[in-house]
């Protein structure tokens, strides 16, 4: 028995006999395999997620002082405690941009989720004709990059180019201003809703399709009409999808960047600190102050975390 172990050891595949040595080898292979499998993902995850976050936190607590006008006499770095955070939080425009995004989120996220839910329920009701065509049409904007969606809509917002403005002028004698100080935020909300409503709708449709037909059957036997079925059966059962889409929408709202950055060229109402992300980008690349920009990035992530957490907490509690 022992004389053959060297050979069976070399080819573990042949080790079907119940000897102790190959079994141990098999054990180590099983122990090692998950790390071989998860290793590449984990390494890249650490490089592109964990390390940047550590770098950002480190940067946000660092101050760089340059000696001489352009730092030609040497650069010294030191621990700054919360100095960068103080600068970021005392910047009224940055705080205003977060407030603006909260206002945006409070209006746009519910509007979009409700619209997506209504569309999903209509598509899944037996009353809708050509549901496949409509589903595909509503989902199509998700494939259009935010940049291109913004270019498209900006053409429809700009006076002189926009056929919508021409139309309302001839029909109602009224010239809407899509790019003014009071309206441009909602013009952005329209672009975001246009892009993501169909995507959220598809997630809800997927969950609706997972409801077993017996449930509908039982509701029908109990005499529930379509409204009652939607309110008392479908809505409670698609709750996980609604929670998921809302959390992703909250995170997405705080990341808003491409839409306002592009509309800047046509709307003077958008300044370089219109959204938190735009603010951090400006701080980093226009003012070259990476430390304060890092503090702003950390603050954005913290707010996103906090809001998602609070929302998940609230929905968890009310489900009990």
């Amino acid at each position, binding site marked *: 028995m022992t004389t053959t172990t060297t050979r069976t050891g070399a080819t*573990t*595949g*042949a080790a079907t006999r119940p000897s102790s040595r190959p079994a141990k080898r*098999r054990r180590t*292979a*099983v122990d*090692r*395999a998950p790390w071989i*499998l*998860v290793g590449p*993902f*984990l390494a*890249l*995850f650490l490089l*592109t997620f964990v*390390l*940047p*976050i550590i*770098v950002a936190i480190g940067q946000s607590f660092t101050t760089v002082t340059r000696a001489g006008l352009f730092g030609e006499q040497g650069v010294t770095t030191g621990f700054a405690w919360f100095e960068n955070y103080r600068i970021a939080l005392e910047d009224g425009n940055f705080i205003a941009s977060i407030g603006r995004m909260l206002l945006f989120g409070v209006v746009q996220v519910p509007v979009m989720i409700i619209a997506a839910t209504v569309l999903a329920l209509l*598509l*899944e009701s037996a*009353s*809708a004709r050509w549901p496949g065509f409509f589903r*595909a049409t509503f989902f*199509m904007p*998700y*494939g*259009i*990059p*935010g*940049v*291109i*969606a913004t*270019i*498209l809509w900006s053409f*429809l917002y700009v006076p002189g*180019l926009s056929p919508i403005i021409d139309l309302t002028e001839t029909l109602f004698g009224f010239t809407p201003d899509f790019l003014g100080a009071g309206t441009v935020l909602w013009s952005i909300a329209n672009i975001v809703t246009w892009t993501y409503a169909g995507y959220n709708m*598809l*997630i809800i*449709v*997927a*969950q609706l399709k997972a409801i077993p037909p017996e449930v509908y059957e039982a*509701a*029908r036997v109990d005499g529930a*009409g*379509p409204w009652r*079925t939607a309110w008392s059966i479908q809505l409670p059962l698609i709750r*996980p*999808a609604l*929670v998921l889409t809302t959390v992703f929408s909250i995170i997405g709202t705080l*990341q808003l960047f*491409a839409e306002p950055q592009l509309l800047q060229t*046509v709307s003077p109402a958008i300044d370089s600190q219109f959204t938190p992300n735009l603010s*951090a980008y400006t701080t*980093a690349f226009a003012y070259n102050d*990476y430390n304060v*920009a890092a503090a702003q*990035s950390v603050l*954005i*992530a913290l707010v996103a975390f906090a809001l998602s957490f609070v929302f998940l907490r609230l929905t968890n509690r009310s489900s009990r």
Partner: protein
Amino acid sequence: MTAATVSSAPQRTDVPDAPATRGSGAGRRPGTTILVTGILVVVAIYFLVPVYWVVVAASKTTDDLFGTNGFWFGNTFALFDNLAAVLTYGGGVFIRWFANSVLYAGVGGLLATYLAAAGGYALAKYQFRGRNLVFGLVLGGVLVPGTATALPLFLLFSQLGLANTYWSVLIPSLVSPFGFFLCRIYADATVDSSIVEAARIDGAGELRIFHTLGLRIMTPALVTVFLFQIVGIWNNYFLPLVMLSDQELYPITLGLNNWNSQTDRLPEFYELTTGGVLLSVIPLAVAMIVLQRFWRGGLTEGAVKA
């Protein structure tokens, strides 16, 4: 009210093979159908108007663009002249941007899916020390806004000398924490441990079990992850904007933005922008409509556990 209006509906349920098995069983009265379909048509118009507008606008000369009704074609049909201008401007730089986007999204999507599948499978099918730590770490990653890491990633990559290279956009695209979760949940639910054990007894190595059994069983989830990742990379703007300064490396989003930002000074860029937007929207819109049915499977699995 219920007695009067629903009187015809219960009749149908008595028939065992009634066609109303799909959906909620909402009324099939013609009035409801017209109302519901009417609402859906109005919403569809909303979603299609910008795309329709760009088709019309791309077929116009710059004079017609400003001088004629935006919702109808102009006096001269200049679509092919415009598209030719898009493709040839700057030595065919548009084609280069398009190819870059295909490279970033294609290679990134494929590798990211494979890595997420291997990782998710490992977490679902093996008990090992540190498993919960890995899981918690990646869960945190899903909730961190992508743009929050882009800036520090740029600082990191510029220290490594990777900024402004293909790698600076490609490497971050290889990681999909969301795909990792989906794969983990899907592998947990579909890859039967007894099959894995049987393969082991037959003498298959661990990696071979994953490649021949795991990947095949997980295919529906992998398609979803792949599509998500492709769209995510293709639509990404912030990361390449931060990383790239060389126009030759631009993906299509950055390139079109570059043209668009020149329109207020040079009006001929309107034609380049609308033509370029049209050319880049068509393949995406077609892909979305054709691939739409693949977006179902894994999504709910992710949603149920959320």
